[in-house]
């Protein structure tokens, strides 16, 4: 009943209704924007609802659906397994603490990835542990191992913004619209940074004694 303070007539959306009472049939769909896991909107909404309610099940589902990818992003940003796991754990705590700031403008999982990237950036700035090399047999994919190792080292020479965009796009397979939401940048900026990152990586991989890319060409 105390909530009556918020129930004054001044708050009724009459003006908005009047303003909106016109033909909206010409609404055009937005181009080039597909939210993270667009096909997973329902589970995303369900997870968000549970997390909003403080239900641990929501966090458990979040971990089940995105934990592996979160660990991979954290590992590629921090290059240390312990730091990566700590960052994922810290991300869950931050998500719980700040769930009320989730405004629904991006999908819930995109918002969580944003928290994760920010957490990893903070860890990078105050890091203590040693950088680890990627084990050679981790993925089971038939990739060019020397190129992969050289790429991993070259990534360390990129600027933070280029490295992060490259990791999200090329390593984790996020779409530009998702990256734009995670990093809070325009979609065109995401494309531009990825292009610059790839050009710089190609340059780094084509020069010097390694020159693994020159051999491919």
């Amino acid at each position, binding site marked *: 009943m105390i*909530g009556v303070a918020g129930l004054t007539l001044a708050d009724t959306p009459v003006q908005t209704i009047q303003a909106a009472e016109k033909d909206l049939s010409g609404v055009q769909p*937005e181009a080039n924007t597909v939210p993270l896991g667009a096909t997973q909107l329902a589970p995303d909404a369900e997870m968000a609802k549970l997390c909003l309610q403080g239900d641990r099940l929501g966090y458990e589902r979040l971990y089940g659906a995105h934990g592996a990818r979160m660990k991979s992003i954290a590992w590629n940003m921090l290059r240390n397994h312990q730091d990566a*796991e700590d960052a994922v754990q810290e991300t869950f705590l931050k998500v719980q603490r700040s769930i009320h*700031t989730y405004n629904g403008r991006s999908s819930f999982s995109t918002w969580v990835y944003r928290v994760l990237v920010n957490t990893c950036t903070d860890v990078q700035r105050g890091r203590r542990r040693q950088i680890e090399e990627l084990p050679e047999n981790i993925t089971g994919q038939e990739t060019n191992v020397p190129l992969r190792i050289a790429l991993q080292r070259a990534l360390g020479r990129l600027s933070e913004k280029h490295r992060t965009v490259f990791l999200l796009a090329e390593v984790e397979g996020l779409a530009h619209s998702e990256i734009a939401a995670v990093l809070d940048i325009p979609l065109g900026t995401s494309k531009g940074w990825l292009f610059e990152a790839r050009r710089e990586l190609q340059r780094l991989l*084509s020069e010097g004694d390694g020159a693994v890319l020159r051999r491919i060409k």
Partner: protein
Amino acid sequence: MNLDCSLLMDALRDDDPESLAAARAHAASCEACRLELQAWDAVSLAARGLHHEWESPSLWDRIAEALPARPSRLQIGGRTRLDWRLFASAAAVLLLTVASLWLVRRSAAPHQITAASRQFLTEQALREVHASEAAYVRSIDQLAKIAEPVLDQSPSPLIANYREKLTVLDAAIADLKDNLEHNRLNAHLSTELVSLYQEKQKTLQEVLQNAESSN
């Protein structure tokens, strides 16, 4: 879409399927561009190999242990930190209103105030509050009806996100209303409910503004 060597980099920068398809079609008959694309693809392929998964059998247990149990049952909408202030303000307003009404009644008929009439005043205030609340909810429902075609038909991911948020809000509103049914005088729950309605109103307004600006 036709493409020549000078536009290869533009196509790679655009990074959309159509541009890339045009670049590949061109590269099929151009050795320099073919090598460029080959190196480009090699980096992409190698990058996919950097995705790294490993077993962490105890990680979820650590996270679950660190998550406080159900701390934010009533944090929906982010008002918790302000709750005590809202509660205090609202309680003060209510107290002043009831006191004023009581004084007015007393001065009008000083010898006729009985326990029954005080009860009547409280009931009357409650009825007025509920009438205001019902009007407010009706106006939001009206707003929701106007926004419904946009929410149902727009393929925009932004609208999909709004839809998702509204689903969450509706569920939370239903939940709180259910709780209020069992505890009608709980001021804290009422405040939360108002906050959720305001958030829903704001969200619907954003949906309509977005649709309008897309026109």
